[in-house]
């Protein structure tokens, strides 16, 4: 009988209930879209931020020590510590291998432009180097991916061609060179060499005064075959939290379980730790400004999404409240009649709530599908990638639907409880 009354109520009030379902649908679609984006936005924003550079700097342990202690920078001739180039493929074998988006080694050398006797810094690096990993996989990495936001007039050099280079626009202007010209230079070995300028870049930073050559060319002129001074790594990371900060301060303060959690979470510190595990005598230093900015941006975007979700649901609750109250008012005679023939307040309450909840569930189902579509549109428009459907969003949305529906019904429930049969049944 209970369900017959509910079915009858739903069929009879289908227009009003349709409005309630639409209200819930809109709220849920917004919540679903925001939650899915929020739960997936970390990776998406991380990937976006990764296009703006590295967040880890890997240096030889001794060089790092000198740098930390005396403020001496790499390339100043103060350290003879280097990293082995052939070990760099191991970066893609750590636990968080798939979070290592790009990396590239650097080896600096002083050089002089041949005809002008002009001193400049030549930096050997990878541009788009394909590595054969110990796992049998191949990976292509280098400056092309790591510095993708640089404005480049021309092309990146070929890693296999030691006679190609790219120049920062400041250096190119000083040398009077442009794309296609030939840079005559000599390195520390004093041997003259030449490289075709394949492109001139603008990085908006100090790198604009540098010349980048294939790593092998600089290794050749310095006699440091197979060695690199440092490596920049771009990794997808999880925003820092209290556990990550405690681990950074004092790893020994972590319990075994906390250590395991920290190690198995893509905190920048955990990734740095794992890099140090696979590279000989290396120290991976988080570029904290970048890491912290990423965390702050992520935190703010997630807060914004959460606020939008809450706002959407609050609006739904408000609209729902009006609609349900109007519905109860419209049905006051019927409710009074049910009370008069023996229904308790609880009986009537359950009836109305069940009716509204069923309607809300139907609206929520439609809203969830719509929300997934919205999140796909947001993903494509903002991140140019699909937002994955998060299973976590389902119970969250379900809980919100119940909460908002019950909350929206509160004024109607109060009205319903205060309704006395005598007020509505005599018709005069």
């Amino acid at each position, binding site marked *: 009988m209970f369900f017959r009354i509910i079915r009858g109520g739903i069929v*009879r009030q289908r227009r009003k209930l349709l409005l309630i379902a639409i209200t819930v649908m809109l709220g849920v679609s917004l919540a679903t879209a925001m939650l899915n984006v929020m739960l997936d936005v970390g990776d998406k924003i991380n990937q976006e931020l990764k296009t703006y550079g590295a967040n880890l700097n890997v240096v030889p342990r001794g060089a790092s020590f000198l740098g930390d202690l005396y403020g001496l920078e790499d390339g100043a001739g103060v350290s003879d510590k280097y990293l082995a180039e052939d070990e760099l493929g191991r970066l893609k074998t750590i636990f968080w291998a798939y979070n290592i988006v790009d990396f590239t080694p650097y080896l600096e050398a002083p050089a002089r432009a041949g005809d002008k006797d002009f001193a400049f810094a030549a930096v050997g690096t990878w541009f788009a180097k394909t590595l054969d990993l110990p796992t049998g996989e191949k990976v292509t990495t280098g400056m092309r991916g790591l510095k993708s936001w640089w404005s480049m007039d021309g092309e990146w050099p070929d890693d296999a061609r030691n006679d190609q280079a790219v120049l920062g626009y400041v250096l190119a202007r000083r040398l009077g060179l442009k794309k296609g010209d030939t840079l005559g230079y000599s390195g520390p070995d004093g041997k003259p060499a030449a490289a075709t300028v394949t492109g001139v870049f603008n990085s908006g930073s100090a790198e604009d005064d540098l010349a980048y050559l294939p790593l092998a060319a600089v290794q050749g002129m310095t006699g440091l075959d197979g060695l690199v001074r440092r490596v920049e790594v771009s990794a997808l990371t999880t925003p820092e939290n209290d556990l990550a900060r405690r681990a950074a301060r004092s790893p020994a303060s972590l319990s075994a379980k906390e250590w395991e959690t920290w190690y198995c979470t893509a905190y920048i510190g955990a990734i740095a730790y794992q890099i140090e595990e696979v590279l000989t005598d290396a120290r991976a230093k988080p570029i904290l400004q970048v890491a912290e900015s990423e965390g702050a941006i992520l935190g703010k975007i997630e807060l914004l999404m959460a606020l939008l979700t809450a706002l959407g649901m609050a609006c739904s609750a408000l609209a729902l409240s009006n609609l349900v109250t109007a519905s109860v008012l419209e049905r006051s005679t019927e409710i009074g009649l049910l009370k008069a023939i023996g229904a308790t307040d609880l009986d009537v309450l359950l009836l109305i709530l069940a009716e509204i909840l069923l309607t809300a569930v139907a609206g929520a189902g439609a809203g969830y599908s719509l929300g997934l579509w919205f999140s796909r549109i947001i993903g494509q428009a903002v991140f140019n990638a699909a937002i994955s459907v998060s299973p976590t969003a389902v119970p969250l949305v379900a809980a919100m639907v119940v909460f908002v529906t019950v909350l929206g019904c509160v004024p109607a429930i109060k009205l319903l409880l205060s309704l006395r049969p005598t007020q509505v049944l*005599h018709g005069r």
Partner: protein
Amino acid sequence: MNILELKDVSMTYGTVKALQHIDLTVGQGEWLAIMGPSGSGKTTMMNIVGCMDKASDGSVVLDGQELSKLPPRGLTAIRRDKIGLIFQQFHLVPYLTALENVVIAQYYHSMPDEDEALEALRSVGLGERARHLPSQLSGGEQQRVCIARALINCPKLILADEPTGNLDEANEKLVLEILHRLHGSGSTIIVVTHSPDVGSHADRVIVLEHGKIARTTTGALLHKSA
């Protein structure tokens, strides 16, 4: 034996005295008509006797149970178990069939039994209309569904508020016949009415004026004076 006893019952709404010091007893199986002009307190008395309102003062005992001390939930239980209500405006749930409108009273009382509900509809001449919605029934038919609903739980007291107020003569006759039949089978009936014709069917008639019982007569005398 009395089914209903009102002792010194008063009801005030703010400064309005709707009922003043009413003393009344209704015997088991009696048909009582409450008459009086508009505003005389008929509906207030019906609400109090029907457990839909509580008297401001005095004592109301229905089937041996004092109503004035009961909480709202207790009044609902009494209303459900002991009273059958018939309204002037019919008041059926519009999206339930005639049969379901009867079953719903069983549902809140005990266990729904469609056969029993169908029998109740047959007893008011609506066996063939059991699957019709209220909108598909005439006013008289709707009122007879109300009567079937009021009877379904075998109430101690049938309380009818202007049961023929919205009916034509033919339907009024039908409804009064049903009430006579119920009365004949021992049911206690209280009818609130404006109509001397309806009042004349009662064993006893009380006439309210300004919230007080102005006079008491019998249905037969009322019929003669009409």
